[in-house]
């Protein structure tokens, strides 16, 4: 991301930045997010979660996500949500393990040519996990039909 993107988050939601450092001072991973929405849609959102390849399989993603969920709890959010490439089965499996379910599919959410790795447009799963303020897990009930990116609120 551009510096400006990070700064927007840093100025508005500094509490949502978490970083993991190794014993010899390397950055192993980080998470950033925000809180937004009104009434029962007031929720925490995972904007980026990243773990360096050499530090995978240490449970860092779970730790970082737990930190973000904790902040969202304290902010009295109803749920936490995130978007993930439908092809990214490793990440989807991880989020499922952490208690997230696919709430809906967002068509062509990721545009092609955004990185040398991905040349095609791709759909996203919008995945959600209810927090303690939503004990009946209403916010997690899946939608049947996919939505267009412009209809995502």
């Amino acid at each position, binding site marked *: 991301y551009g510096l*400006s993107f990070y700064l927007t988050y840093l100025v508005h939601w*500094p509490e949502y930045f978490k970083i993991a*450092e190794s014993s*010899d001072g390397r950055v192993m991973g980080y998470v950033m997010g925000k809180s937004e929405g009104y009434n029962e849609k007031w929720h925490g959102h995972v904007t980026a979660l990243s773990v360096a*390849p050499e530090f995978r399989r240490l449970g860092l993603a779970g730790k970082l996500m737990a930190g973000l969920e904790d902040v969202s709890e*304290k*902010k009295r959010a109803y749920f936490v949500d995130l978007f993930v490439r439908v092809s990214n089965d490793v990440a989807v499996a991880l989020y499922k393990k952490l208690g997230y379910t696919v709430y809906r599919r967002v068509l062509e959410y990721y545009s092609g040519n955004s990185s040398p790795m991905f040349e095609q447009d791709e759909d996203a799963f919008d995945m959600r996990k209810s927090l303690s303020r939503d004990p009946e897990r209403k916010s997690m009930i899946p939608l049947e039909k996919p939505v267009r990116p412009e209809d995502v609120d």
Partner: protein
Amino acid sequence: QNNKSDPRERRLKAIYDALDAGNNKKAIQEAEKVLRKEAGDSLCAKALRALALLRYGRLDEATAAASEVERVDTSEESVLQAMTYFYKESHRLDLIAAMYERAVQQQPKSEDLLTSLFMAHVRVLDHKKQQLTAAKLHRLAPSKNPYYFWSVMSVLMQATECGGELASKMLLPLAAKMAEAFRDRMNAEAEVQLYLMVLEMQERFEDCLATLDGPLSSLLSPQSTEMTRQQRMGYLEKLGRKQELADARWEDLTTEPNDWARWQSCIQSSINADISQGGDYVEADPRLSELQSRIDAIAAEHPGLSGPCLARLELMRRCPVSCRPETALSLMRSYFEAFASRPAVASDLLQFRSLLSDTDENSSPAKLLELIRPGLPEWPKAAADADRQQLVRDLTARINYEQLSRGLLNKPMDAEQRNAKVAELIQAYRANLLDGLRPTEVQPADDLLLLAVSLHYDAWLVEDAKQSETHLLQALYLLDEGLSGSPSNYNIMLWMIRLFIALGAWTPASNLYERLDVKQILLESVGFVLSRQVARCGLLSQGLVMLNNTAMFYKNNWRDIVEHLCTAYRIGNFRKVPELVALTDRVSSSLESVFCGLELRHQSLLLSGPNIVEGVYEMGAPPESSSSAESPQPAFDGLVDGRDFRLVREFRSDLLAATADASRLLEDERAWLLYRSLGLRCVSHLTRMATEMASTGSVTKQADAARALKQQLMEQSAGSTGDSLPAFDIEPHPCLPYPACLPAHFAAGSQALLAPAIDYFLNLLPPSTDNSSAGVADASSIDPLLESFDAQLAAVEVINADGGSAATAPVEPLFGQQLQRLSCLCESACLLSLVHELTAVALAGKLAMSKKQRRPYETFCRTVRSRIGDRINRAAAALEALEAVWKAKIGQAWTDADGQEETVGVGGDDGGQPKRRCRAKVDELLCQSRCRCLGEMLNLLRVKARLSETGRAGGAT
């Protein structure tokens, strides 16, 4: 837009729409239409036209249009907004403030205008004026807290900026008084935090603690609990309340017993608390064993956690009296045995290497390896039915062992050992490639391949094999194989960039750099892997693009950061204000930014083609040299080096040590920047000399300045070629600049031309020109300049002679070094060409004289032209011959590869040999890229040669 019936609004909307759609040409037309219809009355249309012209790239017209708007004082919101965009996009933030100052004079009671004025001051970091403006806002709207606290924050920022007594005796007490006056009216967390910031700067930490415990703490939000905990511990530390701090740290640890940062603070604060109570530790100190048991108890409570196990080692490191090498060895052994199948265990342990003994065999690094080896799993083999998770665990344990062993033994192997190890590693690598990984995932076995690459690199460094490309090529072949299985492994790509550059192949290196997707902030930390190479790879247009992108990144970011600073004020996130201001400082003192800026100017000067003289003016001399030559050379102090030298993983601590000497590395860079800026000043001064000579017919005004510049040049050359900077010294760590820019450049003989060029111009005209027919300098005055060039040319012609035959070793064994020498030769040829151009400029006045009088000048010019042209042609011939050698090799690699059977198979006993397909591919890439570099340089030389042939210098201007 509400009033859709108003035709004027409708017409303006058409301009806005065109601008929003990025159709700037249409926006210009729409604006001009409005201006025609309204007889030029619409100020808004004028402002929008200026903006559209700017975005369309018609800068002169844009500036003219903008100054037309500036002449009218207005407080019309739409005009002010359009002009704000205009100033932002032309990087003139200062003019926004000036514009709103004028607007506020017209409407002094407008809260909106004053707010805009406040933000305009924020953008240029004018804290004093911020304060005054915020005070005005507060007087207008006394019930609005934010305005009041804007002024408190502005006072605080003035204190941060000026420091010293003014801050401590006047500004900070003022800020504190202002904040305290509003204590009862505070109603937001941000205001409490601002109050704390003031107290912190006043070092009133007791008051800080009291505030955290007092009634104001009710304003702190639940999500800030973590931050306030940290704040509280920070205050205890400042107050020297060591026991309380230690207690708080241990309590903090219990919530996250695997958090390494917390362990480090815990151990350190316990040591500090103990020592402050009763002196230094001694052996068998009961306090020490108490601390050890405390750590052991937590370790026992959480058996699966690695943090508590490392904590015992950390205690030994921080408190050497507690260290017994045999205990360290046994702790490290059990750590490895417990966690071997997890990633990064080797680097966890290697930081404690110094706790082992180098003298006692029983607690030596070798002993540790000997003890853990029997417990290792067998090399696994990937197969369809294998349990993948188990396989990765076993593989990781073996990788950890190999990495640990490299780091613990810390020395290169002999050739036999090394070949056997490479074979073992590569076979294990090939046997353990996993199917079905996403392209963004890396193969776990890649680390084995990278270790084999390190071994080849060791061999190249140690065996004085720097004379040959063999080991580097072997490493590259393996890396190419690795990349095809792991297309996003950045370690592989960084290694390849480094090796391709060493072998003089810019294009593949630059392609990999693009594939790494280095952009944005990565330019600061990673960009150096390529930006440092532009100068040594020939004068490439691709390099210019790269430097330009980086320069733009820094320029635009400054503007972006101050916009976020405005937001921080607007939403009252005062904690971020000093951080963002510090970030603007950081951006402007970035080494990478200055480096790329200077290099860009230098490269564009050399590439600027036939209008080189105009080119110098156009891009302007570097700002630090825009004054006269006598002004002191910029020292480039205070630059911040953001390069991340730990990008490529290395485990040998002796090699890592080279990256740790940050000051030496920065010193190398500063020497280079000084050299480059001196070179640029010199060129811009020569240009100025030539034009002044043309108008005055004398050099007297410029002579002293030129001599001063020459003196500086000589001094720097003398200082930089001394023993302290050995030429072509290869940096031992793969991530370091290879070799440092300046010594490599000097070794290639590049600096030698500038001083004689100044001498030549000083001698070009005699001091007095009263007798106009006499006095043209002797054509031999150019001899020293040409001699320097001939020396460079001779060195290149030696390379050339050897390039075709393998019988004799070339002067520079690596093509990367040869290329650097050629690149320096090209730079010199460009400078010669400039001298020839400037000769014509300097003598222009003389050449316009009557036919009889101008003859000696014409003869002189012609001689200079032909002698310089001859040199450039010879340089081109040398390059052409070398290019022919490499052109002939294109395609051969594939023929060779196709001609033989591939015997290397998966898991076969092939001795870890590179695959033939990879060899052919890399060899071909090298040939093509070398040809391309040579070709580009050759084209440049031909342009310069043609220039001297067409005789621009011979004719009158």
